[in-house]
Structures are given as structure tokens and as C-alpha cells.
């Protein structure tokens, strides 16, 4: 095994060791304690979050887009930088309050509580699982490719190992899910990414010199209009690129559920500041590295490996191993969170809701496990034969989720007239339009991105259908009351609001 692989192995053993040790010392509440953010504060909270948001996309997808399209790829980064703060500012507090009043435990259940109808769950759950599956698969591919590059093991085997480790982590990951590992991972990746960026800049002789050299290859790569120049620009695609990771992000169920869990909005708010700050530095980094890779590694047959190969070139051996390990860990934790989410959706929102209502708890866990295994197997089969590009898959799944869910989540908290038929048609049209647009290749013909089309269709559907069916399907009284309660928050003086227990909203008697 080469040196890098040794470091990879050592890193993993160390992480497992930390996890087991922490378990043994009986730190049972460590996750709860640290999630509360009391001793860590917003800066560290934001740092921990970075490790889960940096995943295979950043290291493979972004680099490959940059390598093939030059500065055009930065449009994706432009949206991504603001995604977090946008999400929090629009959904965060209202969703939290509304979900408290409605008593929802999951974000899909929240949708059904807000738009009472079993159809909502019947549509939302499969769409969510479908998109999560694709995103997870992208992480598999990233893990497999990464392992293949570092260790030299053939892709099919590397993929198998990556999938195996991810599934194993999902089953036993709880033992490892201590804040320490998240924090350490975040530091390693941040240091790694900065180191790669600095190393790259040194290797090309500075940013300006690097840009000049890239310009020699093809001056259009320096523009934001794509390698074929301004004449080929498709504004619809550019708009879609910006929207995907800014707005599309609000459609991810496992992201939105965090609003519901937010015990300390003030920490979330401050963390969003730190997060934007970090994002400014770290989101563009892999794109820049990918662009510079055009000079350092002009003949890459797989652009997805641009960032990795550059790292291999500019970093000392031991650093490559550690950084790779940090990346693999990030991939694992992202994939694991998503797999768990899909398992829960399958068992709670689908199986238990529609098929077997009196499902016992152990059955519920088994459905989750089974779902995870099935998704892993299918994911492996698809990924091993003809793996699609990581970037494509991530963008596709975020697009569909965004088109399907963003309007209904936003309207849930902000628009009292959004009703069940509106929500149903919004989700259906959003999903169908974005998927069809993508699969039939209409992007090239019309110059409009599936994200743009999807969002427009689903938003229009929500508005038009809700207004048209206000009389026949009015929003239920208790939902309207809950929305009114949610609105109230602005009007109450802060000093009175301090420490208010929102759950009491559901205990107010009629004659109060």
C-alpha cells in the first residue's frame, strides 16, 4: 500500500477509536450536549456544519465542472454561497413555530399537517426518497473514485468498499457520531482545502499568472459565459445554476427538519454569519483549483479527479492521505445522514402511514434497515456500470427537490391561502416538469434550465390552483389559526417573548 493509503487507514482507525472511547466513557449525552451549542458557540457550530456540507460534490463535482467549463462553473458557487442564509432567513423561524404548534415530528409530516390530506405524504415521500437516492449515489461514486485514485484499487472494488463502509457507518454510526469526529473532520478538510488552494496558486505562479495561462488555452474559459463564448450563452441555464444551490437547497427534507429542531435560534442566526463567511472562502476554492488544473494537468481523462490529482501533485504525501481521509469521512457522513433520512421516510411516511398502521417499533427499524440496504445495492449497481458524473447527479436531485418542495414549504409558513389542491399540483408539476425537461434534453433546445422551469411551474401551480379552489377546498380552520399564531411573533415585544414555550400555543382555551 502506498503512503497515502496508510494515512487513510490510520485516520479511520483513529476516528473509530475516538468513537468507541467516547462511548466507553459513558458520554451518553454528548451529542445532545454539543448540539445545544452552549459551550461551543456559533463559530464552532458553523465549523461542524461545514463538515457535513462538504461532500463528494465539492471535491469531485465542482472540480470537474470547473475543469471543463472554466469560470462559467462559478455560477453554481454564486448560488451556493447564499443558500444557507437564504434558507434560514426565509424558512427558519416560521417553520419552527408552525411545526411546534402543529405537532409535527418530521418535515414531511409537517407538510401533511399543514396541507391535511394523505395525498400530500403519498407524493412527497416517494419524491424525496427518489431524490435522496440519487444524491446518495453521487456520494458512492465520489467515494469509489476517491479510493480508486488514492489506493490504486480498481473502481468496482473501490466502489464496493466505499458503499460497504457507508452502510456500515449508517448502521453503527451512532457510536461514531460524536461531535469530536465532526469537528476534527471539519478542521482537516478546511485545512486541506486551503492547503490545496495555496499549493495550487504556488504551482501556477499566482492567480493572475494562472488566469493568463488558462486564457492561452481558451480565452472563453475566463469568462462566465462558457467555453464557447458569449454567443453560446443560455441565460436560462445560468439562472438555473444560480437558483439550484440557493433556492433548491430549501427543498431538502433533512435540511428543513433542522429548522424544526432549532432550540436556539440565536445560535443558528449567528452561525449563519460564520457560515456565510466560511462559504465565501471555501465554496469557490474547488472551482478555482479545478480551473488551474487545466494548466497543471492538461490531459486528465477524468475531469472529476481534477481536485484530487492536483492535491496529489501539490501536497506532500502524508497530507494527501489525511486530506483524502477527511474527504472520505465527509462523504460518509453526508451519505449516512441521507440514507437514514430515506429509511425513516420509507418506514414512517410510507410504510407505517399507508400500509401497516399498527407497525411495531422493531418492524419500523427493520423497514428502515431494509430500505437502506436496497438503496445501497441499487446505488452500487447503477454506479458501477456506467457511473454518471457526480456533478450532474447532484444538480439533478437538488433541482427536482427544489422544484417539487420549495414553493410548498415557503407557502406553508407565509401564505394563508395555500391549500391542499394547490400543494398537490405544485409538487406534481414541479417534479414532472423538471424531470421531463432534463430527460428529454430540452435544456439545449430552449436554453432554459430544468430548475428554472421546475420552480416556475410549481410556483404557478400552487398560486393558481390554490386561488381557484379556495371555495371548494378551504384551508382548515385549525391551520389558519396556527398560521395566525405564527404571524404574531413579530408583534410581540422581545422582552416578553423571551423564553416563551411555543408548545403551549396548543393549550390555549377558547375563552382566554
Amino acid at each position, binding site marked *: 500500500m502506498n503512503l497515502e493509503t496508510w494515512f487513510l487507514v490510520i485516520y479511520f482507525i483513529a476516528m473509530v477509536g475516538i468513537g468507541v472511547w467516547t462511548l466507553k466513557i459513558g458520554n451518553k449525552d454528548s*451529542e445532545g450536549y454539543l448540539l445545544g451549542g452552549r459551550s461551543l458557540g456559533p463559530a464552532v*457550530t*458553523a465549523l461542524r*456544519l461545514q463538515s*457535513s*456540507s*462538504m*461532500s463528494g460534490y*465539492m471535491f469531485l463535482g*465542482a472540480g470537474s465542472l470547473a475543469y471543463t467549463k472554466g*469560470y462559467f462553473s462559478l455560477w453554481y*458557487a*454564486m448560488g*451556493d454561497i*447564499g*443558500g*444557507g*442564509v*437564504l*434558507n*434560514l432567513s426565509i424558512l427558519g*423561524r416560521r417553520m419552527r413555530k408552525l411545526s411546534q404548534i402543529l405537532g409535527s415530528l*418530521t418535515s414531511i409530516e409537517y407538510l401533511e399537517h399543514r396541507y391535511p390530506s394523505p395525498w400530500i405524504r403519498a407524493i412527497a415521500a416517494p419524491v424525496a426518497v427518489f431524490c435522496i437516492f440519487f444524491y446518495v449515489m453521487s456520494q458512492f461514486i465520489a467515494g469509489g473514485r476517491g479510493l480508486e485514485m488514492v489506493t490504486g484499487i480498481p473502481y468496482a472494488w473501490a466502489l464496493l468498499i466505499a458503499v460497504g463502509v457507508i452502510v456500515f457507518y449508517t448502521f453503527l454510526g451512532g457510536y461514531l*457520531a460524536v461531535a469530536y469526529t465532526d469537528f476534527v473532520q471539519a478542521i482537516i478538510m478546511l485545512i486541506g482545502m486551503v492547503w490545496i488552494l495555496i499549493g495550487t496558486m504556488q504551482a501556477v505562479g499566482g*492567480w*493572475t499568472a*494562472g*488566469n*493568463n495561462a488558462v486564457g492561452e488555452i481558451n480565452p472563453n474559459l*475566463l*469568462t*462566465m459565459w462558457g467555453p464557447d463564448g458569449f454567443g453560446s450563452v443560455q441565460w436560462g441555464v445560468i439562472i438555473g445554476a444560480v437558483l439550484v*444551490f440557493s433556492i433548491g*437547497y430549501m427543498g*431538502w427534507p*433533512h*435540511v428543513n*427538519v*433542522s429548522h*424544526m*429542531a432549532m*432550540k*436556539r*435560534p440565536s445560535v*443558528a*442566526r449567528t*452561525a*449563519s*454569519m460564520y*457560515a*456565510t463567511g466560511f462559504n465565501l472562502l*471555501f465554496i469557490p476554492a474547488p472551482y478555482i483549483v479545478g480551473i488551474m488544473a487545466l494548466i497543471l494537468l492538461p490531459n486528465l481523462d477524468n475531469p472529476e479527479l481534477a481536485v484530487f490529482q492536483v492535491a496529489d501533485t501539490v501536497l506532500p504525501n502524508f497530507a494527501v492521505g489525511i486530506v483524502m481521509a477527511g474527504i472520505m469521512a465527509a462523504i460518509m457522513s453526508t451519505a449516512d*445522514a441521507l440514507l*437514514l433520512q430515506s429509511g*425513516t421516510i420509507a418506514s414512517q411516511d410510507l410504510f407505517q402511514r399507508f400500509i401497516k398502521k399498527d407497525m411495531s417499533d422493531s418492524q419500523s427499524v427493520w423497514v428502515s434497515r431494509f430500505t437502506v440496504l436496497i438503496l445501497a445495492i441499487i446505488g452500487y449497481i447503477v454506479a458501477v456500470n456506467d457511473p454518471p458524473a457526480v456533478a450532474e447527479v447532484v444538480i439533478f436531485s437538488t433541482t427536482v427537490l427544489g422544484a417539487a418542495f420549495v414553493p410548498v414549504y415557503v407557502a406553508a409558513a407565509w401564505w394563508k391561502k395555500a391549500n391542499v389542491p394547490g400543494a398537490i399540483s405544485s409538487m406534481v408539476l414541479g417534479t414532472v416538469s423538471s424531470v421531463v425537461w432534463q430527460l428529454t434534453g430540452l435544456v439545449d433546445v430552449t436554453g432554459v434550465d430544468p430548475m428554472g422551469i421546475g420552480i416556475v411551474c410549481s410556483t404557478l401551480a400552487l398560486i393558481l390552483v390554490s386561488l381557484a379552489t379556495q371555495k371548494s377546498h378551504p384551508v382548515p380552520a385549525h391551520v389558519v389559526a396556527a398560521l395566525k399564531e405564527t404571524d404574531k*411573533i413579530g408583534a410581540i415585544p*422581545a422582552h416578553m*417573548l423571551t*423564553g416563551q*414555550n411555543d408548545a403551549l400555543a396548543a393549550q390555549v382555551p377558547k375563552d382566554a
Partner: protein
Amino acid sequence: MFGLPAATVAIIFGIPAIWVIYTLVFVYLSRGWKAEDVAEDKLTAGGSGPTTSAPGHRSEPENGGMA
């Protein structure tokens, strides 16, 4: 500047600047959020009353870039 065309520089510095401004505006407008923090002693959940539940998922508030 930096060997890049003016349009590129304008965009890759301009749009992030917009986000920074947005974040600052948001932070200013949401300065009352502290009022909604669950009170310190509720977090220990050792009080004498019913404890509010947490949703049953490992929920990590993702404020950073998603992908």
C-alpha cells in the same frame, strides 16, 4: 484585474458581496431571535415539568453550502 475579464471579476466579487449584505441585513432584522431561545434551564430538561420532544432524526442545521 487578476488576468480576468472585467465582467468575470464583477460577477465573482459582486454576487458574493450581495450575499454578504443580505446576511448582514438578515442578522440585523433578526436581532430579536434571542428572545425565542428555549430558556437555559429547559435545555437540561431536568426541570419538574414535561420535557418538549426533539424530532427523531439526527438533525444538523445546515447553514453552509449544501453540495
